[in-house]
């Protein structure tokens, strides 16, 4: 993947010194417009986050001040300490981390396993099966959430940890994404291993899996983020407050403390911050993973 993306760059930077044309005024204007657009868009994207962070440390009456002030008169950093005692933040974060880790593990494991079957083992009915997988990517969860809820409730799984784990862990997306990657691994590699007497599982574990580090990281990060941010699943399935995830907990907190603006913003920052960290650490894998296969939405 990196080789692929590096290639066009190498070409374009190599030909610059030789055919350097005098820059025309139109080009300069274009560049200026480009920078202006880039800065304007960055501001538009970032301002809500900046406002959110600043509002979280403001005194309550300054959040909606007219005319607005960006900076608080007194910085209430203690909001970030108080939120842990004023809400069940610890429970919510704990639950969410637990869900996200279980789901990510299951999705990566079953997804890469199935993708190997679809990509490297030739068997009858494979293409039909894969077509069914692909077709369901076009079916929104919202359309079948009712029968799914009814089935999981019927076997007593609603309002349990299992419901959220099952809900997220078997997405067709993971299979699709890993298969995209496995298709780029040359067939000769597994063929040679087969001749050397390695079993299919051996090939998967010793050859394919070690090669797929970056895509597994990408799938892992994407799944983790999706599970962390999921609101609808927990909203429908979870009733007991001790099972609440951060999204559901935050929403409950907002409706119970609707006038405590600064605290609400503190909670919001807390729900965004871990994902920001995960994203900044893994953004290369994240963005490349999405660029190659889209993302479940």
């Amino acid at each position, binding site marked *: 993947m990196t080789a692929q*993306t590096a290639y*066009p760059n190498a070409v374009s930077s190599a030909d610059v010194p030789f055919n350097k044309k005098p820059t025309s005024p139109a080009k300069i204007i274009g560049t200026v417009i*480009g920078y202006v657009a*880039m800065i304007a*868009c960055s501001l538009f*994207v*970032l301002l*809500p986050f900046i*406002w*959110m962070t600043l509002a979280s440390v403001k005194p309550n009456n300054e959040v*909606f001040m*007219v*005319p*607005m002030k960006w900076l608080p008169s007194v910085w209430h950093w203690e909001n970030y300490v108080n939120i842990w005692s004023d809400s069940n933040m610890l429970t919510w974060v704990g639950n969410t981390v637990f869900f996200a880790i279980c789901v990510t593990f299951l999705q990566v494991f*079953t997804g890469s*396993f*199935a993708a*190997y*079957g*679809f990509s490297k*083992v*030739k*068997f*009858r009915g494979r*293409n039909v099966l894969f*077509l069914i997988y*692909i077709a*369901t990517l*076009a*079916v*929104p969860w*919202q*359309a*079948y*959430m*009712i*029968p*799914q809820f009814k*089935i999981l409730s019927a076997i007593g799984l609603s309002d349990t940890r299992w419901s959220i784990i*099952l*809900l997220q862990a*078997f997405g*067709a997306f993971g299979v699709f994404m890993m298969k995209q990657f496995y*298709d780029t691994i040359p067939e000769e590699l597994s*063929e040679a291993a087969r001749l050397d007497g390695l079993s299919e599982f051996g090939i*998967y574990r010793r050859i394919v899996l070690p090669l797929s580090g970056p895509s597994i990281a990408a799938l892992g990060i994407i799944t983790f983020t999706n599970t962390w*941010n999921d*609101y*609808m699943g927990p909203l*429908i399935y979870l009733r007991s407050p001790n099972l609440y995830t*951060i*999204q559901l907990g935050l929403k409950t907190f907002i409706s119970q403390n609707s006038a405590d603006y600064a605290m*609400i*913003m503190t909670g919001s920052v807390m*729900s*965004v911050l871990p994902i920001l960290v995960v*994203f900044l650490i893994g*953004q290369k894998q994240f963005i490349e993973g999405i*660029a190659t296969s889209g993302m479940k*939405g």
Partner: protein
Amino acid sequence: MSHTAAPADSKTATRGGGNKPQHNKGKMSSAAIARRNFLHGVAFITPNFLGFVFLMLIPVCVLFYIANTRWSAFGSPVWTGITNWKRLLHDDVFKDAFWNTIYYSVVHIPLTLIIAFGLAVLLNSKLKGRAFFRTVAFFPYITSIVAVAQVWNMLFDAKTGVINQFLGIFTDNLPGWLGSTTWAMPAVIIVATWREAGYFMILLLAGLQTIPSELYEAAELDGANAWQRFWKVTVPCMRPTLFFVMVTLTIGSFKILDLTLVMTNGGPGTSTLVLAQYVYRVAFERSDFGYASTVSMVLFALCMIITLIQFWYNNAKEK
């Protein structure tokens, strides 16, 4: 999605053909190999496939049945034939939800596409700081909907919100945003576009980077201006990416739920009530699961129809 599967088909066909003689020289008969491969293939797929069948395929099939039943909170579904469908035709709230979904999609899809395409073209240039910009633009997509909706709700506050304070510099005729039936939907669309443009930008950028620069150079030598190069080189080369983006964007717009649920809860009145939220409301707030499934079927059909149309159009264009 037969389009994406087609290349995979041809690949396996050539691979299978190439490998056959090799296998025949070995100790096992080709039937034994086929059987062995089948068992191996199934073994690899089973863990995911079980979950997939149980949590997705079966629910989708069951949906077709429940949609024609009456099913309240307790008891089991009772078959009622087309009663639910008749009710649907006379349900004004359903009609509102349907048209709101269309309204949202018709504005949100082109708006997001244009902005995302513009940003992708910008990022495909040699401007400095574009790596930073890519990170920034993508960030809203991975933030939690609850936090994002809450922040925008505060920013959109009609009297004291930041947005109206800013607009107040230019005009006295300020929109009421989330408190007004006219302006609530535009506010939702603004937030949705803000959130998703960066994601589609990444997809489109990946497509742009696959276009060989020789094509542009050749077109430039032939005297094509920037506008012509865009329509004659960029757009045709981007067709597969644009197709994927359009399908994703359309389905994403039809199924919009969590954003309106958290931002406006469908209000004021029914002005931002969309199909998926009507499904949620009928099912989980009124426990009328049968009728909610009927509404789900409409959502399901809408997504299928649009996806098929886009397939057909894409295939026709490729020929």
